[in-house]
């Protein structure tokens, strides 16, 4: 990769340790993806916020670099481990809370907007078509490339951080033109959001950096988010294009059998002790839709709902949060199902969810059973 004189000087350490670290990361990223040069980007979205995922090493790293590092461009942030407003209800230990607050403080010191959301594409204005961004949250990178006409690679937590500090990213892969060599033919009839999540999970396993998907009808907001979440979990793929693709594309069917395989991998329980909705976090549209679906009904067991703080505030003004709380929902902002420290195998055997992304991490990281159901069925089975 070619560096300008200024970039090279930063890499050599002539502009301080922070920039040297950032350029070292960008150069490794550039080498990994065969980039010729670095290009300016306008927005970075960082992962690596939840103390449950980054641990003591991550907390110490951020605390140390925040003394000198400052972000150069608009930078937003993934969810953390809890909602400070109701954390006392969940029995988290003091150490977790203080380490998490230290992480939050480090990011704020660096100049990052504390959005604590994995759906930046729903709560911030989308820049003009073709704008280069660096999104580390995998579902957000896929959404940005596939629905929002932005350009990003599937960044890592460190590559996005390096891009935030330098305002640059290697010009490679999905930042350039990218033509998929695989087309997945969607054959499953009448898909709901759970099926789209499984399709995404399957596509992520077979695709490289991007895939075509044919046979899709119109998808609502919940279904497209489910597909982005599923895809980001299983693979390296960060873009889907709708259509058949070129005639020389390898064609792979996603039919009942393929769907059953994904289901068998992730569904490990017949029923759940609690329900979680929101991985990715729910936006205002989904909250509004859920509120109307729950009219006159209430949950028979605990139901945790995850959304960004701004969405929760809007929902409160409109009156949705009252309705949802009446129906027995616990509404949590700033955090997410995914890698939540609030769900613990000591007191939960299994969780019911409609999220494939959530299912993967609940099963592998939280170590609890997972019962997969689409939202409509959750409401039918679990409310009265």
């Amino acid at each position, binding site marked *: 990769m070619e560096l300008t004189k200024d970039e090279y000087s930063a890499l050599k350490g002539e502009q301080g340790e922070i920039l040297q670290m950032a350029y070292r990361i960008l150069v490794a990223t550039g*080498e990994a993806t065969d980039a010729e040069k670095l290009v300016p980007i306008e927005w970075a979205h960082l992962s690596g916020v939840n103390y449950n995922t980054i641990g003591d090493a991550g907390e110490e790293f951020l605390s140390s670099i925040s003394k000198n590092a400052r972000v150069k461009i608009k930078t937003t942030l993934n969810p953390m481990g809890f909602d400070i407003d109701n954390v006392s209800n969940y029995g988290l230990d003091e150490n977790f809370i203080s380490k998490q607050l230290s992480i939050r403080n480090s990011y704020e010191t660096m100049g990052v907007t504390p959005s604590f959301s994995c759906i930046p594409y729903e709560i911030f204005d989308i820049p003009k078509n073709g704008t280069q961004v660096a999104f580390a949250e995998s579902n957000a990178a896929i959404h940005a490339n596939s629905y929002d006409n932005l350009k990003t690679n599937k960044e*890592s937590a*460190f590559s996005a951080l390096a891009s935030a500090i330098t305002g640059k990213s290697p010009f490679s892969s999905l930042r350039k033109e990218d033509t998929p060599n695989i087309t997945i033919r969607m054959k499953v009839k009448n898909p709901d959001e759970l099926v789209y999540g499984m399709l995404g999970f399957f596509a992520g396993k077979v695709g490289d950096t991007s895939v075509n998907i044919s046979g899709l009808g119109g998808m609502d907001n919940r279904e497209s988010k489910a597909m982005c979440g599923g895809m980001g979990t*299983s693979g390296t793929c960060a873009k889907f294009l709708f259509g058949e693709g070129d005639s020389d594309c390898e064609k792979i069917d996603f039919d009942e059998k393929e769907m059953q395989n994904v289901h068998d991998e992730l569904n490990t329980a017949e029923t759940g002790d609690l329900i979680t909705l929101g991985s990715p976090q729910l936006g205002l549209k989904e909250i509004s839709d859920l509120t109307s679906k729950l009219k006159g009904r209430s949950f028979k067991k605990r139901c945790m709902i995850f959304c960004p703080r701004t969405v929760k505030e809007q929902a409160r003004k409109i009156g949705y949060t009252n309705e949802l709380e009446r129906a027995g929902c616990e509404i949590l902002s700033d955090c997410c199902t995914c890698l939540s420290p609030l769900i613990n195998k000591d007191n939960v055997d299994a969780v019911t969810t409609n999220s494939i992304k959530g299912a993967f991490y609940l099963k592998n*990281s939280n170590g609890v059973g997972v019962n997969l159901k689409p939202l409509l069925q959750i409401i039918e089975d679990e409310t009265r």
Partner: protein
Amino acid sequence: MKKTLVSGKVCGIVLKSNNPINFLGTVDKKTGIITDKNHDLFDKSIKDTILVFPSGVGSSVGAYTIYSIKSNNTAPLAMICQKADLTVATGCALSNIPLITISDEEFSSIENGMNISLDTDSPNPIQYQ
């Protein structure tokens, strides 16, 4: 060899997987043990191995997991992949874990349990002992 992403020189025993690895959530950051029951390395520790696997997949936060296992002294000595992905590349870059990519032929010729030395500056970086 296709590419050196992070340079270095180490000797060790190969732990090989034919499955990609999602470092976040499936590698215990304190012990370096793989916790995904569906993975062919389930219950094995990647500590002090030369970890050979197709590529990293999944969450971008996996880069922090690599940094954590390095800080906790439970990281592999080096990693060898078929395909470079940003999570593994940047995690190794920040943690100074040697990382190279190799061709599909080389990948199939490396077997679990082999004793190898890796020197990224040598024209033949992988030497079988």
